[in-house]
């Protein structure tokens, strides 16, 4: 009964380094999302995907790239990390908007620090 699994849970990077965050869901959800959460703020949508092979920009996409090669996985990449990208990153998944009574399901988050 895993739900949405994010790896890694913690990571410290130096400015300019690259890394990929992995999100996996086992609920056969069509939609997947990446959010960031900064202190004292709500979650902000970075990128999302409406199905395998599709991606789209959210509210704050700059500095990030994503890929959805398999339905169950959604990858978030930082090509050249900057201190402003220090944040907690949450992945979520859901059914399509045709099932609005089903909320988004969230992973446990990845705490990322950029030095």
């Amino acid at each position, binding site marked *: 009964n895993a739900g949405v699994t994010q790896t890694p849970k913690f990571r410290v990077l130096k400015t300019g380094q690259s890394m990929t965050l992995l999100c996996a869901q086992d609920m056969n959800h069509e939609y997947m999302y990446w959010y960031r959460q900064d202190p004292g703020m709500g979650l902000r949508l970075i990128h999302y995907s409406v199905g395998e092979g599709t991606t789209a920009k959210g509210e704050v996409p700059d500095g990030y790239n994503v890929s959805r090669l398999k339905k169950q996985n959604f990858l978030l990449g930082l090509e050249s990390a900057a201190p402003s990208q220090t944040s907690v990153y949450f992945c979520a998944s859901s059914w*399509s908007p045709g099932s609005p*009574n089903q909320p988004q399901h969230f992973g446990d*988050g990845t705490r990322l620090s950029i030095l």
Partner: protein
Amino acid sequence: ELKVEQNPLFLSMQEGKNYTIYCNYSTTSDRLYWYRQDPGKSLESLFVLLSNGAVKQEGRLMASLDTKARLSTLHITAAVHDLSATYFCAVDPDSSYKLIFGSGTRLLVRP
């Protein structure tokens, strides 16, 4: 630009008391979600409100939605310490599942 505003941002209340958290949003939305987040943890879905006048209750929490006023409330009845958490509302303005979150209300229930 769509804005989702919650108030208060911080609430310290005694056990046994009642209180209401407000969520105002600036554009039309027929869908509103409430989530709970414990410190260092993920978000847990509490309520999904899909129509004007919708009211849902779970234990000591009751949520309502007034789409005409662009307002949702989360009412806490006889608070207990276990309700201490941060509560977020989120709207889905174009029914696309791209949620816009409020800043959250941090609730602390004191003995």
